[in-house]
């Protein structure tokens, strides 16, 4: 074998080892811990039996499934309608609507919960709308989760609607197909893949999110909070492992359904699709404008309330403007350090995560041989999407805090936060990388070999520059998520590495709503700033490296 092939295989092996170490190892440890007692002695299924014997678990499972089902049933149709309006109507302000609808991604999920308490809590302005029901509990969790999951669903559905083939609509029109029938025979089937995917993402996000029910759930128990209670409150790690396995089940189920659907739907898209161009239809456009405005008002109200809360003196008795939450609550209390931790963490996550994920995707897609290993890796990299952050975080404690693990030195460092975050958000980043790489001609590597040019040279001269938009996209995705992630890192931070999102959780827990809202505002502000900066830098970089894209065609 040529040394180039050996080098490629060596790198692939190294990457696989890293995945095994930072994904498989921790997850396996959860299984191990769930059948051990406190001292590490094997006890079989005792914890499971104990846990399943408690009625509260069944209630938690029911609550979790109920909330997730409602959120999914509301969010996905909302997101679909919104995406439909953006792609199929001629309403004005599409760009603005899109940006507003995506803002929740920039905020930690906790912010939504805090904001809903301010709107609908005992002292809330809109308390009356709930007709006496309390926002604490299912209602609050559902509202906050809808807000937090909406942009995720929107992005997926939007992509699938944008892929629609305009020729199908032309054909349908030629056949005088009525609009409603066109919707059910072309639009919906075309978006089916996106809808299934969005459903799965929204469902598992809601099931695994821990911040929202923690803040606004009141006494409404859900599985994600159960894990927190077991681990932090009762210091029972083994039972925490058991609950996390229970939590894993519905998400895994959603994941498997999605996987099967995806396999069946794959062949539907033709690369020669012609983009659909909407035509004016005053009634429809107006209806869509009203709908999108309503959703946007909802989005802005949530964000706005959080910002407002951070700037008032004493809710609800003294609503005068004040910086005290920033000055005393964040800076004097030393919590501001956490904000810089988050910036650092998000930056490292974006930097190292993008490098690793893209390199791995490249080795998988563009090098030859080791088909079996690659098939296994392709399956493994889809796992993070199905693993709730809390479960991953718990696995990291078990795995990296084990005295026999030579890597236990990373426990309590920034490195473990970065690693867990990269792994947590691995799947979608990987998909982006693979999509970009698949768009490249498969024969680049063959041509290089025929010209006796080593593969890494072609990687740096061609593959990487051509894929730069996707690479930058992954970087931004990891950065933004690194700023807001909480579930995996809540078990892993050390005092000098505590991220801002955890600080928000702790401040909310201590009842410091104003300071918590202030921190959330800071996160949103800096993520926005980074996105804008990113857009500028990207445009500049693209102009330099992607000149070929802009070059005039014959």
């Amino acid at each position: 074998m040529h040394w180039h092939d050996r080098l490629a295989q060596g790198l692939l092996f190294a990457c696989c080892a890293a995945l095994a170490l930072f994904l498989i190892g921790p997850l396996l440890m959860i299984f191990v811990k769930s059948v051990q007692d406190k001292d590490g002695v094997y006890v079989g299924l005792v914890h499971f039996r104990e846990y399943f014997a408690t009625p509260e678990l069944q209630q938690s499972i029911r609550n979790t499934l109920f909330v997730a089902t409602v959120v999914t049933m509301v969010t996905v149709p909302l997101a679909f309608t919104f995406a439909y309006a953006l792609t199929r109507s001629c309403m004005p302000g599409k760009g603005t609507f899109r940006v507003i609808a995506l803002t929740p991604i920039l905020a930690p999920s906790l912010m939504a919960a805090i904001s809903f308490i301010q709107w609908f809590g005992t002292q809330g302005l809109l308390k009356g709308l709930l007709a006496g029901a309390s926002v604490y509990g299912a209602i609050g969790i559902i509202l906050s989760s809808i807000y937090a999951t909406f942009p995720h669903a929107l992005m997926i559905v939007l992509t699938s609607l944008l892929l629609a083939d305009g020729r199908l609509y032309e054909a349908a029109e030629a056949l005088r197909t009525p609009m409603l029938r066109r919707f059910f025979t072309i639009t919906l089937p075309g978006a089916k893949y996106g809808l299934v995917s969005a459903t799965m993402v929204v469902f598992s996000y809601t099931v695994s999110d821990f911040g929202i029910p923690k803040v606004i759930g009141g006494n409404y128990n859900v599985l994600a909070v159960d894990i927190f209670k077991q681990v932090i409150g009762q210091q029972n790690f083994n039972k925490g492992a058991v609950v996390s396995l229970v939590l894993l089940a519905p998400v895994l189920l959603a994941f498997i359904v999605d996987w099967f659907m995806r396999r069946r739907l794959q062949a539907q898209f033709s690369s020669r699709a012609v983009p659909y161009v909407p035509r004016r239809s005053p009634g429809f456009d107006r209806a869509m404008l009203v709908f999108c405005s309503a959703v946007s008002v909802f989005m802005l109200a949530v964000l706005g309330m959080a910002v407002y809360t951070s700037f008032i003196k004493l809710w609800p008795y003294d609503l005068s403007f004040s910086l005290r939450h920033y000055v005393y609550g964040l800076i004097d209390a030393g919590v501001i350090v956490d904000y810089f931790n988050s910036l650092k963490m998000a930056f490292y996550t974006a930097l190292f995560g993008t490098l690793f994920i893209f390199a791995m995707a490249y080795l998988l897609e563009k090098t030859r041989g080791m088909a079996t290993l690659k098939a296994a890796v392709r399956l493994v990299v889809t796992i993070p999407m199905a693993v709730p952050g809390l479960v991953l975080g718990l696995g990291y404690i078990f795995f990296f805090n084990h005295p026999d693990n030579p890597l236990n030195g990373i426990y309590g460092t920034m490195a473990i936060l970065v690693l867990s975050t990269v792994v947590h958000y691995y799947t979608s980043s990987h998909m982006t990388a693979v999509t970009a790489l698949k768009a490249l001609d498969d024969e680049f590597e063959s041509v290089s070999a025929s010209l006796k040019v080593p593969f890494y040279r072609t990687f740096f001269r061609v593959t990487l520059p051509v894929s730069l938009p996707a690479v930058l996209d992954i970087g931004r995705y990891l950065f933004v998520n690194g700023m807001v992630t909480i579930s995996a890192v809540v078990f892993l931070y050390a005092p000098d590495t505590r991220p801002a999102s955890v600080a928000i959780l702790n401040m909310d827990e201590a009842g410091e709503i104003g300071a918590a809202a202030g921190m959330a505002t800071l996160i949103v502000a800096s993520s926005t700033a980074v996105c804008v900066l990113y857009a500028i830098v990207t445009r500049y970089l693209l102009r330099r490296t992607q000149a070929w894209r802009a070059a005039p065609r014959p």
Partner: protein
Amino acid sequence: MKSRTGLRWLVPFLAAAPLAFAATAQAQKTELLVYTALETDQIKAYEDAFTKAHPNIGIKWVRDSTGVITAKLLAEKANPQADLVVGVSASSLAVFENEGMLQPYAPKGLDKISPAYRDPKNPPSWVGMDVYGSAICFNTVEAAKLGLPKPQTWKDLTDPVYKGKIVMPNPASSGTGYLDVAAWIQMWGEAEAWKYMDALHQNIAQYQHSGSKPCRQAGAGEFPIGLTFEYRAVTTKKSGAPIDIIFPTEGLGWDLESSGIMKNTKKLEAARTLMDWLATPQAMELYAKNFAVVAMPGIAKPLDYVPADYEKRLSKNDFAWSAKNRDKILAEWTKRYDAKSEKK
């Protein structure tokens, strides 16, 4: 620190990272890793005073709520990181002692510490710093709106008039919640205490995961009555919230902020120096700025909003009993009340 280098060879893509990530360990100075639940502003004051007295010892703090710190220490039992635990509840330290995680040490001047505020064994595994006890925050503005009378006792809280108006910390996740429950059981006996909690449960709007939040919520008028501890009650009142602080007359649940040396520490000398300092009158004077009762008699001064006879109001508390029965009590509590939403 030694194992941190392991990162370098195993994670080549992080090659540049250790520079940024690894903490810098200065060789000349002994650095103690201390786990604590103290408030940040207190930490600063204590550290300043200590390092002035012992400039050759540095402190690296790991700060979090009592529940989290306790969980962390137990999680790391197999591979302990901390050299000392400072300012963590005596109930938790008693649990650590049961687990064999602490190293008994009698600090200099131990004889001046009140016997009630230290581990009764000799030498003690932990020594108290100051007392924090339960208190109730009562929002007078909201109470006036709702026409709620001001409660004076624990038992007043079971009056149906307060239905849905009370928040209390969940003892399973909050040390403050647990000290209330432990006090009720020790004061009234198991049967009566559980009967009381059954009645109280009917009035509880929410169980929170921290001891501070109920008072903050009372302060913000979210729920007019919050069970909390006196330090948070005082700070909330000082921040301008319209609350009264109530110290129920039957007796107050309480716990100690206390300290102990971890069994595995490799810096025993320095750890003992810090333990010695924590028991000095100078240190006690610093505690007294925030707490009405400190472990060394005769140092505490009266504080705003805290009654002068505060110490007398504390109920009898046996930490060994409390640690031993913790699991059992929490299991029973969880069984009875945790699925509150079901009964709505």
